[in-house]
């Protein structure tokens, strides 16, 4: 009766646009208004840096010169600030960024005819770009920090010991991997939120908490803490950061399957 019936098999519908074009549409969507994904995190980082500079200034001002030199390394950095966790907030913040960005753009992309697959791949590609951008920024800031002996105040934020002692280039790689980890933990959380709302996110993190406690339980019960510590020391910063790729990849794959069945219903 109809042309479709006459034709027998339905016509093969190949998209007018390439897969790459569709995926990059998702990337562009995340940057369409850069406030959430780029500007606010940069502002937060700037604020943290400013606060740290103030604190370091206070420390310098309040410490007599002879005491200060006692607590200083040969390179001029203060001992206490080697362990600065100031930058950690920006990593955790990116977990939130991923959740926010997905909650904001998923119903929009779906409403504009994107497939969940293309949207997810675009989102993942966005996070890789964001992580790379931040790693590069950290690299530059760490370089300035070391060149100016801690902004002239002996403090460390971007070259803190957590980012390794393997030189400036490896530090950039480590920061990249760390951003990826938090962004993809945010992605699985965001996918859970989009699909199951807050219940989903709560359930996810309860699950993660149990997993972590379980791992600790195994280590404690088998009295293998020494072996674990030995193992971590043997693989070093490079090994530990490479290991983060496991949870990162797991989160990325799980996020895909969670989002694949998500709808825009509130």
């Amino acid at each position: 009766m109809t042309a479709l019936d006459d034709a027998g098999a339905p016509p093969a519908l190949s998209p007018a646009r390439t897969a790459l074009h569709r995926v990059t549409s998702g990337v562009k969507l995340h940057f369409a208004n850069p406030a959430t994904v780029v500007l606010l995190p940069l502002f937060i980082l700037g604020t943290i840096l400013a606060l740290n500079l103030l604190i370091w200034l206070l420390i310098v001002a309040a410490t007599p010169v002879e005491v200060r030199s006692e607590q200083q390394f040969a390179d001029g950095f203060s001992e206490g600030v080697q362990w600065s966790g100031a930058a950690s907030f920006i990593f955790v913040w990116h977990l939130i960024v991923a959740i926010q960005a997905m909650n904001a753009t998923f119903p929009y992309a779906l409403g504009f005819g994107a497939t969940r697959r293309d949207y997810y791949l675009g989102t993942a590609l966005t996070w890789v770009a964001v992580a790379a951008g931040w790693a590069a920024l950290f690299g530059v800031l760490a370089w300035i920090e070391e060149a100016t002996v801690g902004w002239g105040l002996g403090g460390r934020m971007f070259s803190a010991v957590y980012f390794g002692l393997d030189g400036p280039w490896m530090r950039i790689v480590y920061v990249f991997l760390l951003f990826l980890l938090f962004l993809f933990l945010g992605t699985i959380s965001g996918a859970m939120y989009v699909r199951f709302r807050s219940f989903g996110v709560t359930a996810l993190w309860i699950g993660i908490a149990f997993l972590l406690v379980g791992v600790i339980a195994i280590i404690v019960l088998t009295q293998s803490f020494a072996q674990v510590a030995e193992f971590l020391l043997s693989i070093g910063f490079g090994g530990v950061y490479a290991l983060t790729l496991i949870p990162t990849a797991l989160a990325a794959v799980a996020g895909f399957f969670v989002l694949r069945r998500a709808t825009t219903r509130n």
Partner: protein
Amino acid sequence: MTTVATVTGLTKRYGPVTAVDDVSFRIEENRIYGLLGRNGAGKTTLMSLLTGQEFASDGRIEVFGASPVEHAGVLERISFIRESQRYPEDFQVRHVLRSAPWFFSRWDEDYAARLVEAFRLPVKRRIKKLSRGQLSAVGVVVGLASRAPLTFFDEPYLGLDAVARQLFYDELLSDVAERPRTVVLSTHLIDEVSKLLEHVLVIDQGRIIVDSDAEELRGSATTVAGARSAVDAFVAGREVLHRDGLGGLATATVGRLGEEERAAARAAGLELAPVSLQQLIVRLTNTSEKEFQLS
């Protein structure tokens, strides 16, 4: 005629609620469809299923010959801006206009710009600061300028003023005449759009209760009015869709009347009047007109 979409035995359940209940129909190419029904009847759910935004519990959907779910080739031929479409929190109107062509391959930027001006949309205002009418206008602009071969409008004139509504009708008719495509309009303001519609689907409690050519549907009922006794005598033995009375006067809505029957009615002193699409659908869905408009 080419079939754009075929729906067979489609059912969507949300827990104990059946939002779409064993529905079957076809959508033919280059016609304007009205998807009519009360709020909660299942209009938006049905359109969400047709556009792959929701997953069917049962049944089959074929749009452009394939399931729309996760099918980029099908989805890029569809535009469906739902009445409750969510936009990114920090988006302004201009961000929507900038990002739309990334998703709609047939997007016409000049046309969108003309529509934005005609609807007087403030492009630098945040979406969440727009009035309900302005928000509807954003959906209308995207729906028209995307020029998708299959375009859904979900309650497009919620909050639109009379001028904007007229603008929408005029633009829809002229643009569709120029670039033929299939349009599905969902609404409960039936009288306003009834002239636009070529085919009518009425959904009630998740079921399609009318699937008919609009012209045919309009002639399918007549109201007879006159003295109660004459009305009673005339409608005896007929199916009466609706009956009303005041004192000795009565009106009754009956099915299609032939020429002879019309002559007989006039001879009995009865007045005949056509039934508007809205009245007819109200009668068919068994609700009072007032309730329908309020819904």
